[in-house]
């Protein structure tokens, strides 16, 4: 393994992810992004939820908190409010962030608390065996939608924008350099930042990893759309950058006065 990654990782290999999983690509992008931010490692805390993505925290050699399913942002809110000098990054899966954790997600967006949420969206529940997620496309067959998913999926980025997040970007595990740049930019952004990282699940999608990457390459298009209504599921890019007073600053201003 390259030394640049090894120094950021704990000696906890082998990891739990399947061959071809996108989580490792996102983890790699985070490590490179973190180094580019110039942030202090011992002033940075990595928080995660439950699911395949939740395991990221145990591999990173940081202060790390592996929380309960869906509540990572609520734990992170407490951490950040108690010590606003910490950089807080939260890794969640799509089910973690917008199904069981949907309430915490929209409220973190609304508060504009200075936390970076990296949501790894593979549009399925992987760890539990391939069930329908709130991001699963309509009609898709999964273990819990054997006749096709009858529900409409969330667009996580659009949800984040309308709920009040002040930095929102979406890239894929194919577009790793853009993803890396977006994570770095999100971490340096003052306010609630969301990076949606589209991945695939070779195991439950029953696709080869290279087929997933090819799909991402062919399907997704970089756009510079600024109107939330116009964002299509296949659009990737940085959708929102807004300068707005951050939550902890407002709370701690009350303390100073």
């Amino acid at each position, binding site marked *: 393994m390259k030394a640049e990654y090894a120094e950021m990782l704990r000696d906890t290999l082998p990891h739990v992810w399947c061959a071809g999983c996108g989580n490792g690509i996102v983890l790699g992008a985070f490590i490179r992004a973190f180094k580019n931010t110039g942030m202090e490692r011992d002033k940075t805390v990595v928080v995660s939820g439950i699911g395949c993505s939740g395991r990221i925290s145990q591999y990173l050699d940081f202060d790390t908190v592996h*929380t309960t399913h869906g509540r990572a942002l609520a734990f992170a*809110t407490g951490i950040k409010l*108690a010590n606003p000098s910490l950089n807080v990054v939260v890794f969640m899966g799509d089910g973690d962030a917008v199904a069981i954790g949907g309430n915490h997600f929209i409220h973190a967006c609304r508060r504009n608390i200075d936390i970076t949420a990296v949501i790894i969206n593979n549009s399925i529940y992987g760890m539990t065996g391939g069930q329908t997620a709130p991001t699963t496309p309509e009609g898709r067959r999964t273990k819990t939608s054997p006749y096709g998913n009858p529900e409409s999926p969330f667009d996580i980025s659009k949800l984040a924008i309308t709920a009040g997040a002040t930095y929102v970007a979406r890239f894929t595990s194919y577009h790793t350099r853009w993803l890396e740049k977006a994570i770095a930019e999100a971490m340096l952004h003052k306010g609630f930042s969301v990076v949606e990282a589209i991945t695939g699940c070779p195991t439950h999608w029953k696709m080869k990893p290279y087929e997933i990457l090819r799909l991402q390459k062919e399907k997704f298009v970089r756009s510079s759309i600024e109107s939330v209504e116009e964002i299509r599921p296949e659009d990737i890019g940085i959708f929102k950058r807004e300068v707005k007073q951050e939550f902890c600053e407002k709370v701690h201003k009350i*303390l100073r006065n």
Partner: protein
Amino acid sequence: MTKELIQGNEAAVRGAINAGCNFFAGYPITPSSEIAHGMAELLPKFNGVFVQMEDEIASISAAIGASMAGAKAMTATSGPGFSLMQESIGYAAITETPVIIYNVMRVGPSTGIPTAPSQGDVMQARYGSHGDYPIIVLSPATVEDMYHLTVEAFELAHKFSSPVTVLSDEIIGHMRESVTLPELGERIELPESENIIGIGRRMHRTGLAHNEHGLPTTDFKEYEGLIKRLFAKFDSFKPKVKVENGDADVIFIAYGSSYRSARRAVKILIGKGVDAGILKLETLFPFPEKEVRKISKKAERVIVPEMNMGQILREVERVCCCDVVGVSFFGSLIIPEVLAKKVEEML
């Protein structure tokens, strides 16, 4: 210290602030809301953070997160909110994170009667989260207790690195009593934790079973070691009880607002020539087994009045050597004369 008329929930707020509480996350629910009101007003004046979260799950999760980052953290709720918090209480137990959970009990199950008093959450406070875990549960019976047991809750949470639940009830929370308490701001210094985020420890915290390095394990021997160590931490724990007329034939064992009624019932019975005494449980869990067993050795009968179908009764029955009788009341404070009459009829 001067005498003042103060509400139970307000006394809890003062106790928390004097114990160094500097983080409160909560969600409105009667009859605990006055704790949130007091915290919202006073915490900023004591360099602390108040945040109203989107629900009770978020509230306790934020409190645990804040505690991990070095804050003295607390949340307060009542029945329905306490149910929502259970998963995270187990998380605090297995990650050994100090956090105070105030449950001002109301009638349940579900929405119950908002907001009549009850003691229906006793077993939930002990066993509410899934899996094996130890927890400290304290029970205030007076406005003064609301202050002192809150201070004690913070001391114990930080001494044992554990969640501590203060199980109050609507009567104690909403009652006003004339009491003499330490002034707001007479702070008690608790030792700072060295096991926090942001000081270069680079530690992992997880709700997964973990080894001594904090990293996940699926080895059942390591899991057994973890669970046994969690329980063994409380070997040195000293539960608190208060005894009056401990040598009596008829002993009441009570806690919370039931204790107040039972204490008066004891006086009524003594007036009628009954040899009666009382043991007040200030600690519900770890259950004061030795203290209860000891008093039952001399007694002929132990009476357990509760505002539920008989919850602490089971614990009392488990350790007593004498006849144990539960007396249940529902949805309203126990009238001492009624309790005394019921007991008199049994004798």
